[in-house]
């Protein structure tokens, strides 16, 4: 009996944790971000300094404070310790990890070492095998939270002693996600590729006007304006879809410098036509002709995204759809606005003529830069908030 009570008091501290089960601190997690591009991996691994201190001892002077110097002193040891516990494989082939910079970040529960690294798998990764055993031997409650980015898709996963080895199939992300990504890329491209916007706007500046007796007059109805716009946009869309497809399928290919220069020239011509309307009689024809050239430009962007043959149709359709959505988005802002102010003096002088002249200037600079491969005026665009 006495012995029992004695035992009892010995383990009392343990007993008492029973009344406070829920009051927990954030447990030990690390955050692993891996970005895959073909055979190359760029990674970042955030590991709590507290955990590293427990594992390999950072607080050299034992004053309960970890300084940057103490981390720097142990940088090699930290890398060696961490990367002995993380293995990346492309199928069965090990991708050697090369630690890069070590930085610091503060998460909600304290300071973390941020270890940036790269790994080269030589061949494009099909199946990424991640073997994660950090702290598995000293703290089985530790977890590694992985975020894996590839081709715009994101996967997350969690590593612990029970699931230390996990495989990720990178070859074929599900087609819907991929399709969505291409749509977004397409939209993004038309918004960011100022040359396409400027080309469209140049062609559409006169859409709210009609030419009579060598003079521009406000268009009498929205209907006639809309028909004009639809003709131009449809012609542009059909044309660039044709060349985008042909170029992506490698049926036709043109040197990108020529294509880029020609796109710039198309913008100049389209804007010039507003001032000297005799150049292009039917704007939809011009839209079609130059649309063929813009299609090659889109194709170059699409191939930069790193296409795989299996995803070709998804990419083509998705990207093209994104471009159209982006176009419609621009038009739905531009058209009602220009229609509303078409009768004003402001529209004709400031918008129509001055706008066209500015566009000619900018596109002219692009043309010179692209055709002669010089970067004379690139900075000009940086001054302009609109661009």
């Amino acid at each position, binding site marked *: 009996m006495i012995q*029992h009570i004695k035992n009892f008091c010995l383990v009392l501290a343990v*007993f008492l944790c029973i009344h406070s089960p829920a009051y*927990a601190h954030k*447990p030990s997690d690390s955050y692993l971000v891996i970005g895959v591009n073909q055979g190359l991996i760029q990674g970042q691994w955030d590991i709590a300094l507290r955990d590293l201190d427990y594992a390999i001892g950072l607080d050299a002077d034992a004053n309960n404070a970890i*300084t940057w110097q103490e981390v720097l002193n142990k940088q090699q040891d930290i890398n060696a310790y961490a990367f002995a516990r993380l293995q990346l494989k492309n199928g069965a082939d090990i991708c050697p990890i090369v630690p890069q910079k070590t930085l610091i970040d503060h998460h*909600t529960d*304290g300071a973390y070492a941020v270890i940036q690294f790269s790994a080269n798998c030589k061949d494009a990764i099909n199946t990424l095998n991640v073997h994660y055993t950090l702290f598995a031997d000293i*703290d089985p409650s530790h977890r590694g939270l992985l975020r894996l980015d590839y081709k*715009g898709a994101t996967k997350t996963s969690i590593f612990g002693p029970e699931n230390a080895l996990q495989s990720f199939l990178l070859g074929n992300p599900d087609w819907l996600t991929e399709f969505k990504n291409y749509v977004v890329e397409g939209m993004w491209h038309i918004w960011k590729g100022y040359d396409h916007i400027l080309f469209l706007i140049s062609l559409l500046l006169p859409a709210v006007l009609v030419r009579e007796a060598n003079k521009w007059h406000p268009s009498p109805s929205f209907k006639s304006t809309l028909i004009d716009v639809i003709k131009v946009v449809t012609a542009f869309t059909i044309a660039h879809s044709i060349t985008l497809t042909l170029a992506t399928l490698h049926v036709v290919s043109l040197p990108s410098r020529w294509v880029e220069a020609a796109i710039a020239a198309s913008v100049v011509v389209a804007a010039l036509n507003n001032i000297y309307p005799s150049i292009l009689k039917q704007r939809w024809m011009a839209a079609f002709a130059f649309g063929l050239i813009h299609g090659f430009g889109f194709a170059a962007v699409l191939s930069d995204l790193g296409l795989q043959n299996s995803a070709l149709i998804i990419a083509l359709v998705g990207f093209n759809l994104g471009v159209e959505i982006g176009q419609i988005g621009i038009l739905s802002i531009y058209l009602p606005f220009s229609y509303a102010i078409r009768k004003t003096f402001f529209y004709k002088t400031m918008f129509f003529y001055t706008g066209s002249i500015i566009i000619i200037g900018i596109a002219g600079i692009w043309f010179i830069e692209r055709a002669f491969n010089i970067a004379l005026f690139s900075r000009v665009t940086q001054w302009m908030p609109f661009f």
Partner: protein
Amino acid sequence: MLKNKLISLLLLCWALPLFASPYLPSSPSEILENLPANAATSSKEFKSLRAILNADPNNISVATQLAKLYIERSRIEGDPRYLGYAQAALAPWWKLASPPIPVLVLRATILQSTHHFDQSLVDLAQVLKLDSSNGQAWITRATILQVQAKYAEAYQSCEHLYVLAPPLITLTCATNIHNLNGQAAKSYAKLKAAYVASGETDKSIQVWVLTLLAEMANRLGEVKAAEQYFKQAINIEDPDSYLLGAYSDFLLDQKRPQEVIALLSTKTRIDALLLRYAEALQVTQSAEAATQIEALKLRFSAAMLRGDTVHQREQSRFELRLMKNPAKALQIAKLNWVVQKEPADVLVYLEAATAAKDQAAIQTITQWLATVRLEDVALTHILTQEKRAS
């Protein structure tokens, strides 16, 4: 380039708790992290035990000794890492179906601390079958059953302590259960008297009893007595996280958020205390509230990624009081209710149910309260208001 921008855009929408601002510290002497004082890493006792165990991982007496120390630290610092360290110390036996009794008891304690109640009960049953005089197993079992609101079984476990433990411990175990089970005033008086009569007692037992007395008094609406017990408990030794949380709740109820801010400003690493701190900041309309709410959001999303359910009580309260999302709060409170049924769990459930105007849920809680005869002025207050409103 386009690709990079696109990815970073996607990242903005991403919930992983990564603050995208790693930096290079400007000075080598910059202090990056303060370790808790007396942390396991720096204490000589831990270091020498770890060294012995590293050399001889199958040394069961050192392994259990180290595991106990870790579990104790997890209680003091409120840091679940130590439960992981304890588990690691017990690694050679951890996965055995029937490890030696000392390991079984510790495994049950760790499982209980991580809310794996049913697995813990299985281990405890095994211990008690082999050694019915294992006081620690009985009291851990009583605690789990009390959390699960299985009061009759919990009381039976306490009864076994009569011959095994000091009278104050047995009485505390028993009155704590009766207090939730139809005898609120009587059991409170009984524990109060026993505490006064007990004289010299271990400090941690004093804290335990005083915390329970404070909570009992508070449920009975004896605000002054409750405060006195809380203050007494806090002054005995460095208060543990449970006590700080309970006292903060009391202060928040009493509309004294400033005191909560002062009490908890250095304790925000502990999720439950960060929650109370953020609530106090919000009540005082502090500019810092938004930052702390964001931090909590990240903590909960990390916990959910991990699959942790330890935080559901807090998470429900967070959704209700700070995110103002009664539907989600109720959903989480219901999940929590399946696991645990302490007065604090009833409170979050009822608060969420009334905020979400879910009559069926309110009905469930009212019936449950009537069956177990839990008396709590906070719950009564909400139910009275609810009745008046409807």
